[in-house]
């Protein structure tokens, strides 16, 4: 009887060992893709009051136009169109051979992170935040972390509130040079928070975007 119990225990142990080694040796496939995680934190007197973590932060049509321009294999002087934060459509050069740089999109500098009190659901056609109380500040320099096969980029911004506001939407914009050689700001991401944050004057709101490539 005792031997049978020992044998049963041994077989159960082997079963678990089989499952464990099977999962451990399972080949990991690199699927690719890009994930965007948005982390919004509220601090009061230096203490963390609330944290909202939203995944699948969506991109606007402006970002899609950038992808399209990247893939375009046309000739010189071709342009693509994006809508700036004022709602005006701007043409940007895909290429212009006679220009050293001042007419090319990435000649401009500047990126901004926005917070606002709008609650209008995301639309791919968004070009600005939807609220009436909107704040913006410069985004940080992206930090890169690359551990094969994954690559992460993180940018962040901090807002010190001088008055109370509800933070219910967040956006990211980039300044680019248009074909008229002027620089304009274009919204590339906008997200309505899953849980709004009620902030008071004196609170600090931090926004962090984590962009993960291949996982």
């Amino acid at each position, binding site marked *: 009887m005792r031997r049978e119990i020992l044998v049963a225990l041994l*077989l159960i142990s*082997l079963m678990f060992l089989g499952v464990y080694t099977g*999962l451990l040796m399972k080949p990991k496939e690199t699927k690719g*893709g890009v994930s965007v995680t948005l982390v919004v934190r509220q601090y009061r007197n230096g203490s963390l009051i609330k944290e909202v973590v939203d995944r699948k932060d969506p991109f606007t049509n402006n970002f899609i136009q950038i992808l399209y321009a990247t893939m375009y*294999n046309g000739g010189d002087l071709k342009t693509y169109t994006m809508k700036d934060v004022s709602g005006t459509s701007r043409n940007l050069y895909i290429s212009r051979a006679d220009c050293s740089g001042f007419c090319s999109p990435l000649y401009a500098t500047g990126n901004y992170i926005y917070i606002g009190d709008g609650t209008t659901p995301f639309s*791919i056609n968004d070009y600005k935040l939807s609220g009436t109380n909107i704040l913006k500040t410069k985004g940080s320099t992206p930090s890169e972390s690359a551990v094969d096969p994954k690559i992460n980029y993180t940018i962040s911004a901090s807002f010190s509130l001088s008055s109370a506001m509800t933070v219910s939407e967040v956006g990211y914009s980039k300044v680019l040079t248009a074909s008229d050689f002027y620089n304009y700001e274009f919204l590339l991401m906008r997200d309505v928070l899953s849980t709004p944050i009620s902030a008071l004057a004196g609170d600090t709101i931090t926004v962090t975007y984590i*962009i993960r*490539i*291949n996982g």
Partner: protein
Amino acid sequence: MGGGDLVKRYLVLSLVFLLVPFLVAYSMPQQQEDDRVVKGWLITKAYDAKGNLLWTQVKEDPFTLNFGRYISLYLEPGTTTHAAVDTSGTSRTLRVGQDYDAVRCHTYTSIAVGTGTGGFSINNYVLTNSVSKGASLPSISVIGNKANVSISASFSFSSATTITEVGIITQFHDGGACRDFLIARDTISKSIPAGGTLAVTWIVEVNA
């Protein structure tokens, strides 16, 4: 039953209890949350010499570090440079916020197919053994809040060939000239008969 038979029986039983769970766990599909907003899809189709469809494969295509460095140019607040390795293996400078910025010449994105081996790495900068390269104009389709941007290329083979790798190559400016950069690479293992055609489509799905 003798002692030797009993030991054999226990050994067989032990092996069964070890191997069956191992095989079940090994072959189970991975269950994990998919929070990706951009997916790169590689669709390959092979046709015989008469145009009959032989097989279709749909795979997700991982991005290289070059793609990351390119995307991060759009996250930069000021004037700076990023390094990327071109298809010759030379490290080049991608600029933002200054003359000869990286995107002033992206006039050419192509699909390359090859017969090289070796798994994917973010540090891949060229196909291991490229045999052909082609391209088409990109197309955009927007449905609701989702969008697809795609390019495609077709390759003809006079002799039977097994294609084992596919790459996406685009051009960036490095301050001196437009250079080719590998931004995605995937391994496949598919045969195309003599006189057959391989059609490849790369779709970047946004807000997936």
